[in-house]
């Protein structure tokens, strides 16, 4: 477990170990993990502490898009593939991202710096085509804009 167990306990205590608070609990526990996911070990720990089944935890994690059961790169790039972005040229954006990041959609780069995934509409259709990087929205994307965003993110890595 990469997260400090004390921090996890704090979250559980804050929500009084109530299973009705499972979603905020899991969201906050996930935030503790640098790789933006809930590991199996962590899921087990939370289940035991909350006295609920591990299945229940996994049912919730796998149901909701914002909860992950697999690790993500340092920069989690989510490209919208819903209708509005589809007709505002998502294809060019996708091709540019794939070539700039050197990974296919659904993959994480070997150095664990980037994960590229599709995501359903996140309500930024006024600036479509759009993507989210670690939940920050980047809109009105063009080939050159993506190149500059990616190079900035890479620059940050080597700083």
């Amino acid at each position: 477990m990469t997260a400090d167990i004390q921090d996890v306990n704090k979250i559980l205590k804050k929500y009084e170990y109530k299973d009705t608070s499972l979603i905020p609990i899991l969201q906050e526990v996930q935030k503790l993990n640098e790789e933006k996911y809930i590991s199996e070990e962590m899921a087990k720990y939370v289940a035991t502490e909350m006295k609920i089944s591990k299945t229940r935890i996994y049912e919730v994690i796998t149901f909701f898009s914002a909860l992950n059961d697999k690790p993500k790169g340092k920069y989690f790039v989510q490209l919208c593939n819903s209708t509005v972005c589809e007709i505002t040229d998502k294809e060019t954006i996708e091709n540019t991202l794939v070539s700039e990041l050197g990974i296919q959609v659904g993959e994480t780069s070997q150095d664990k710096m980037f994960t590229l995934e599709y995501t359903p509409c996140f309500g930024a259709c006024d600036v479509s085509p759009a993507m989210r990087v670690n939940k920050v929205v980047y809109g009105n994307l063009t080939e050159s804009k993506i190149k500059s965003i990616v190079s900035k993110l890479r620059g940050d890595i080597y700083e």
Partner: protein
Amino acid sequence: MNRTQRVITENFNTYKVEEIDKYIQNGGFQGLKNALEKGKDFIIDELNTSGLRGRGGAAYPTGKKWNGGRKNHADVKYVLCNADEGEPATFKDRELLARDPYKVLEGLAISGYTFGAKEGFIYIREEYEFLHSKIRKAIKLAEENGYLGKNILGTGFDFTIKVFSGAGAYVCGEGSALIESMEGKAGRPRMKPPRIGVVGYMGKPTQSNNVETLAIVATVLKMGASNYAKYGTEKSIGTKMISLCGNVKKPGTYEIPFGMSLREIIYDIGGGIVGDKDIKFLQLGGVSGPLMPKQYIDTRYTYEDLEGKGFGIGSGAILVADETKSVIKFLESVSYFFFHESCGKCTPCREGKRQMKKLLNKMSQGTATTKDLKNIEKISRIMTDASFCGLGQTAATAMLTAIKYFSPELCSSIDEMKAL
């Protein structure tokens, strides 16, 4: 002529969340004051006069819903503001929460008072996480100023609001699925009846309204229903927030009076089509809405005009696709979305979407047969008729309207029919 209005959006760009005093100076919380002063019958009368219909998509008359709701007696009751704006092409609630958060809180407080709830929740989608702290701050300041919390405005009415974050599931826009997720479960819709107004959050009566609906409630109670009713048409009263997007020059959220034509909306407000191309189709009300071919763009944007032609207002989304766009690729995107978002509870929706996705993929690859096209239509009808909730029932709407209006294009992707 640009006929956008500033009624619901009167406070946009006039204050920052820290500046609750400015909201109050603008006449903020006057709706709540009037409501508490004049009582529940007055509120219901005003809502009925305003003609307000739910703005989340279902368009159920708000006055009627609230009048029924206050008659459900229980020791504890809850009210919700549904800000799980997950319908693709829709982002007007985002703007309301970002640019006039106090009005939404005010509307929710009025809802709580009318329904008899002391506790309210704003369920905000995870994708709008950047709004969560803003809304929490607004709640805190409203409490400090006596507009929320104990003994509001000295009337003895207690009411608190909490923010609940969604976790990324379109189906949670459905009231009972939303409540399931608030109770720590996967967001699958419940069997109805009972409706959530009778058995909702924690088994208690729960009244849920869309963000825009609540903002209008606060507006109507401030300005008076008869003044609000000066906007719009006889049957579609008032103004509407629209999310205009797609291949238009000026996409965005706009407030318009009901009764403008779609052509006016697209050209006068949206600035026309990017690259001055022609329109091919619109999709109204989001991804669950029908495709509307361009010959209908002189239709007036009202409930009655649209419904009469088989379309609808829905969430208020207006997606515009230009003449170069492929209907099949568009449908593939619709189908991928629903496949991803099906909760898996009922077979028609879960399996129907799986098959639809496969068949549409064949069509876009050019390997589909006439039998495939027939199957698509059959599956669409079964999903519409037999799905458990609104998600599955509307998932094939775009497909069925595409069959109605764009069959030559659909058929052209099928080898055997190319010769015809």
